[in-house]
């Protein structure tokens, strides 16, 4: 019998994939992250409190797995080439070459944000979560969410509105 838990889990996958893509900058890596998150969610299904928000719980799992991987990355010293990651949207993004280049620049700029700003941006500006929901996922006061978001956006606007250096 398919449980409500499983249905909710699968229903969240599209959003989780987009969130993971925003965090990692790579569709493939993002999907691996989501897969790992699903495995963890299934293993810890008994820890999920019925009646609470499944999507918040899942986003938090993705977030934690991502932060873990970033920590491991730092100590290992190998980095994904941001240029490569930014350009790859598997050809599925925008249509015109100049649009695709702009979107690649967007992804690159997001990839250069500090982790904490990237997280907030991914939840609010990309997933479209409310400030309150994002605050709940991140375990932060709403004010902190707002200030990190604003800093991220100010930075991105500045970088992206400048003409590309030739």
């Amino acid at each position, binding site marked *: 019998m398919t449980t409500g838990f*499983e249905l909710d889990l*699968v229903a969240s996958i*599209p959003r989780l994939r987009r969130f993971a893509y925003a965090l990692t900058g790579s569709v493939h890596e993002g999907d691996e992250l989501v897969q790992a998150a699903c495995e963890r969610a299934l293993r810890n299904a008994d820890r999920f409190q019925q009646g609470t928000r499944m999507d918040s719980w899942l986003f938090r799992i993705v977030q934690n797995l991502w932060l873990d991987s970033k920590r491991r990355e730092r100590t290992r010293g190998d980095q994904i080439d941001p240029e490569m990651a930014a350009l790859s949207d598997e050809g599925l993004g925008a249509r015109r070459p100049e649009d695709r280049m702009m*979107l690649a620049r967007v992804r690159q700029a*997001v990839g250069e944000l500090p982790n904490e700003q990237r997280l907030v941006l991914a939840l609010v500006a990309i997933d479209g979560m409310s400030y309150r929901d994002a605050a709940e996922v991140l375990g932060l006061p709403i004010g902190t969410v707002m200030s990190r978001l*604003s800093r991220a956006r100010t930075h991105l*606007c500045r970088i992206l509105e400048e003409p590309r250096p030739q």
Partner: protein
Amino acid sequence: MSTHIDPELLSAYVDGELAPDEVGRVEAHLPSSPEARVMVERLRRLNARLAAAYDAPHRAPLPPALHRSVASASPRAWRHRWWTAAGIAMAASIVTLAMFLGLRSNEPATDGLAPGRLDRGSALHALLESEPSGATATLDSGAATLLSSFLDDEARPCREVEIIGDAAGSRTQAVACRNDASWTVEFAISGVSGPAESRDAFVPASGAGDAAFRAALHTLGAGPVLGPAEEEDLIDSGWQLR
């Protein structure tokens, strides 16, 4: 009014997160502040770009690793269905994800049940092509029994096969469909629990694999099970529909 614009306030305004009275104050301020208007425009443009920049997962089919556990079904069966109710009904597949992640190979199917076109010389192909439901054959992977025949939503003949493996308790339910005179395994779900004697592919049974199987059938657009006479006609005619 001061010319200092609070970026946080404008950010919240563009996100629709301000209380109505705050919205009123911002909008009263905007006409007199070109700087604020530019900022609002930039924020909106950035939002649009962010949405487009991370669009790819929604436009791409679900990658094999995420649905391999249910069935590495043919792209056609999955492509437009994932976001629909039927796709979401595949939820059961997620439970089995942990069970057999990484166990499915991508090799072309012979007698094995990896999805894909079957070798015409294989025992399974011969079984599908010529035998009525209820017939069995011994494959490398175990004992196969034909359970039912039906047409999918493109009027392709399809057949449900159950394979009891040599490994204890291993039971696989698969569906193969006939294209251009050869059979292709559309999906195969392992670890399906429940009684093995059910001939009706649609009978609910316990276990997440069964729910996944039902959902996969739904996605295929499986029609009703064909009766024995209909099935016999089809087999005799070489699976030609009149």
